[in-house]
C-alpha cells in the first residue's frame, strides 16, 4: 500500500511540474504585450516608460530565464506579484480561495445529497414515472448552459421574487466576519453572529445551486446506473433471498457496492465544477478564484494566470490522488493491478 501511495504521489508531482511548464509556455506565446497592456494610451507611446514597465515585470529577460526565475521563486513559495492587484499572487489566492472553496463545497454537498439521493430513488423506481421524470430532469441539468441557468435563477429568485440576492457573499457594504477559516458561514457562526450566518447562506444559495446543477444531473444518472447494476448482482439477490429487509439490503449492500464507482465520478465532477466557478462567479459577482482568474486573463496578468493555474492544478491533482488512494483502499484489486 505504501508503494502504491508513493507512486501515486510521485506521478502527481510530475503532473504538477508539467502543468507549470505548459501554463508558463502558453502564456509566454500569447499574443499581446503584458507591459503595454497595463499602460495608458499616452504612456504606451513613450518607449522609456514601456521599457521600464517591461523591466519591472521581468519581461526584458529571455524566456528560459523568466521560467527559471519563476521556478526558483516557486520553490520558495513565491508565486510572484499580480500586476493587477499589486499583491503577491499567493496572498490573492489566500484571499479569494476560501470564497471559491465555500461555494464549490456547498455546490458539491448539494449535488451529492440531491444527485445521489435522487439517483437511488430513480434506480429503485426504474422505468416508472418518477424515474422517467428524474432522468429527463437530469438530462436538463447536464445540458443546460450554466450562464442561462444563472440568468434565469437570478431573474426569477433575485429580481422578481427577491428571495435571494444576486451578487456578493454578504449584503453590499456589510463588514465581513473576522477571518478564521475564510468561510463566511463558519466564521459568522464562530463570531456568534446568527444574522450574518443567515445572510451568508442566502448569498450562497443561488450560485451554489446553479453550480451544482450539472453535477446533480451527472451524479443522478451515474448513481442510478450503478445502483441498478449492483441490484442485479448475485450477492444482493442472495441477501434478499435470505429474507433481509429491503431497506437493509439497500443500505448495507447496494449503497456500499455503488460507492466505489461513485468516488471516481466525484473526482471528475469536481473538475467540471472548478471550470464552472469561473462563469458562475462572474455572473454572481462572487469574489473568488474564478473572478480573479477571469480578470487576470483579460488583463494579461501573467503571474496571476500561472498562479491560478497552479493552484487549480494542485487541487485537481490532490482530489485525483485522494480518489486514487481511496479507490485503492476500498478495492484492493486496483492497487495490485497497478
Amino acid at each position: 500500500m505504501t508503494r502504491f501511495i508513493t507512486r501515486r504521489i510521485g506521478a502527481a508531482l510530475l503532473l504538477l511540474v508539467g502543468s507549470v511548464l505548459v501554463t508558463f509556455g502558453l502564456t509566454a506565446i500569447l499574443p499581446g504585450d503584458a507591459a503595454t497592456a497595463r499602460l495608458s494610451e499616452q504612456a504606451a507611446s513613450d518607449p522609456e516608460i514601456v521599457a521600464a514597465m517591461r523591466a519591472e515585470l521581468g519581461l526584458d529577460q529571455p524566456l528560459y530565464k523568466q521560467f527559471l526565475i519563476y521556478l526558483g521563486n516557486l520553490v520558495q513559495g513565491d508565486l510572484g506579484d499580480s500586476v493587477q492587484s499589486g499583491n503577491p499572487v499567493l496572498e490573492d489566492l489566500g484571499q479569494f480561495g476560501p470564497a471559491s472553496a465555500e461555494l464549490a463545497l456547498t455546490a458539491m454537498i448539494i449535488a451529492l445529497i440531491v444527485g445521489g439521493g435522487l439517483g437511488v430513488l430513480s434506480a429503485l423506481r426504474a422505468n416508472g414515472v418518477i424515474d422517467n421524470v428524474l432522468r429527463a430532469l437530469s438530462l436538463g441539468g447536464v445540458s443546460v448552459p450554466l450562464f442561462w441557468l444563472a440568468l434565469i435563477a437570478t431573474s426569477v429568485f433575485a429580481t422578481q421574487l427577491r428571495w435571494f440576492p444576486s451578487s456578493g457573499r454578504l449584503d453590499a457594504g456589510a463588514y465581513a466576519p473576522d477571518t478564521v477559516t475564510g468561510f463566511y458561514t463558519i466564521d459568522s457562526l464562530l463570531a456568534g453572529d446568527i444574522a450574518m450566518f443567515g445572510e451568508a447562506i442566502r448569498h450562497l444559495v443561488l450560485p451554489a445551486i446553479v453550480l451544482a446543477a450539472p453535477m446533480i444531473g451527472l451524479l443522478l444518472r451515474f448513481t442510478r446506473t450503478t445502483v441498478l447494476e449492483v441490484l442485479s448482482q448475485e450477492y444482493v439477490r442472495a441477501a434478499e433471498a435470505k429474507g433481509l429487509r429491503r431497506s437493509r439490503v439497500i443500505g448495507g449492500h447496494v449503497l456500499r457496492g455503488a460507492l466505489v464507482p461513485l468516488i471516481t465520478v466525484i473526482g471528475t465532477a469536481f473538475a467540471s465544477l472548478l471550470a464552472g466557478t469561473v462563469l458562475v462567479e462572474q455572473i454572481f459577482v462572487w469574489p473568488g478564484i474564478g473572478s480573479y482568474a477571469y480578470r487576470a486573463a483579460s488583463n494579461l496578468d501573467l503571474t496571476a494566470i500561472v498562479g491560478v493555474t497552479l493552484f487549480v492544478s494542485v487541487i485537481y491533482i490532490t482530489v485525483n490522488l485522494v480518489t486514487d488512494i481511496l479507490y485503492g483502499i476500498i478495492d484492493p484489486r486496483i492497487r495490485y493491478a497497478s
Partner: protein
Amino acid sequence: MRIRTSMAAAAVAGIAAVTLAACSSSTASDSSAAASSDDETSTLVIDKSFDLVTADPARMFETTGGIVLHAVYDSLLTFADGDSTTPLPSVAESWTSNDDATVYTFTIREGITFSDGTDLTADDVVFSLNRVKNIQGNGSFLMEGLSVSKVDDMTVEITSETSNTAVPAIVTSPTLGIVSEDAVEANGGTDAEDAADTDAAEEYLNSESAGSGPYMIESFDTTTETVLVANPDYWGDAPEYDRVVLRNATADAQLMDIQSGTADVALDLGSDQTASLEGNDSIVVSTSASPTFFFLILNADSGVSDVTSTQEFRDAVKYGLDLDAILELAGEGAEHAYGVVPNTFLGALGSDSAVEQDLDKATAAVEALGGDITVSLEYPSDISSNGLDFGPFAERIAAQLSEIGITVELVPSPVATALENYRAGTEEMGLWLWNPDYPDSADYLAFGPGRTVGLRAGWAEGTAADLESIMTEVAAETDADTREELYVEYQELMNEYGVIVPLFQPSATVVSTSTVGAVDYDPVFSLDIAAIGK
C-alpha cells in the same frame, strides 16, 4: 422504508432551510435604502465594471480609479455639475496666467486640512505634482513640459516650456490630486527625479488616504469592492452619503442588481438593457452625451498598406459610409462626431460640417484604385464602452463598404492583442475609441500627424505641413475666439485628409434607484460621487 424516509426528511430539511433563509431575507436594497434614511450610516452602493489598478494618484490613470480618487483627493482646480468648459476653484481659490500662457500662479485656499488633520500648503502641491512627473507612470505625460515651484506657503507657480492654455483643465485631473507630503514621505514616497525607481508609497496609498477630499478610503480592492467613508473634516460641503461601496460587476450583473435593489447606482448598462427598465417606477435612467468617441483609422503608411494610404481610398470611405446608419446602432442619445473634438469642448464641429454620403463619388474613387479592393479591419472584441461592443459597428462598416466594391475582412481580437498592433501602427484599418485625458480640445491634437494617435495611423510628422502648422499655432494661442477658429480649421483639414474618420459619440447612461434620485454622468470624472444625492 428507512432510506426513503430519511431522504424525504433530508429533502424537507433542505427545503425548509432554504425557505427560512429566503423568508428571513431583507434585500440589500432594504438595507441601503433604509440606511440612507436612518440616523446611523447612510450607504450608497455603486456597481461598476472595474478597471481599477491603484489608489495612488501618481500612478492612476483608469476610469474607475478616477471616480474613486476624485472623491478622495482634491486637485488644484475642478469641474462641477457636468460642465467641462469652466474650471472652478478647489484647492486653489484663484489663479492667474501671464499673457502667453506660460506661467500660471495658483493661490491656495486657507484652512484645508488632510484627513489626518495636517494643513495643506504649497509644499504639498509641489510634492504631489513633481511626484506624478517623476514617477514616470501612466499619467506622467500630464506634466510633460510643465514644472511646478513654490512661491510662498500658499502660492505655487506652474511654468510651461511652451504656451499651454490647457493647464487649468489639466490640473483638474485626479492623477494630479494633492497628497500630503508628510504622510506619503513617511511611507516611502518621494518626488525626486529618480522617483520612478525609488518611490515606494503605492502600497500605503492603496490602504490609507493621504488626501483632503470629501471621502477617505476604508478599504481598497481592485477586484471585488472598494469602500469609501466620508471625511469628517472635509473643508467643503459634506457629502450626502456616509459610506460608499463601489462594487465590481459585469453589465448583466448590474442590471440584476439595480432591478433587485442590491445596488443603488449602475454605470455600465447599454441602451438595450436600459430599455428593459422602461416603466419601472423605482428606477431612474439619466442619459447624457459622453465625451468618448469612436473612430476609424485608415493607415497612411504605404509600408503598411498601399491601399489605405491613398487619398482615393480615404475618399471612398468618406463618401461611402452612411454615418446615420452607424449612429443608429449606437442607440438613443448617441450623437454624431463631426470632427475629433467632442461636442462639449471648444471648437467642436457642428452638423454643417457633416460629410454627406455620395455613393457615386465613393464608387469612382474605388474604380480609380483599380477596383476589387480588400482591406482588413482590426478591432477589440472583448471590451465595450457605454454598453457598446465594437463588433456590430465593424460589421456595419464592412457591409456599407462592400456596396462600393471594398471587401473588408474583419479581424476581431482580445484588446490586449489588438492594442499591440494599434499601438505599433501596423493596422491597415482600425476601429477604436478615445476618452479624453483631460477636458480640453488640446487633448485632440493627439490625432494629428506625428502625435500619439496620428502615429498609430501611420501618419508621420512632416507629412501634412498645413495641418501641423495649425496644430502648433493653436497650442500657443491664448485668445479663446482665435483658438476656437483654429480648432475648427484643424478638424476640417483632418476630415479632408481622412486618415482619421470620426464616427460617433455614444450616450452615457447612469441608472439609479428612485431612492437615490437622478445621477448624472460626469463628462470629466465619469461619476462625481460626492455630488450624488445633493
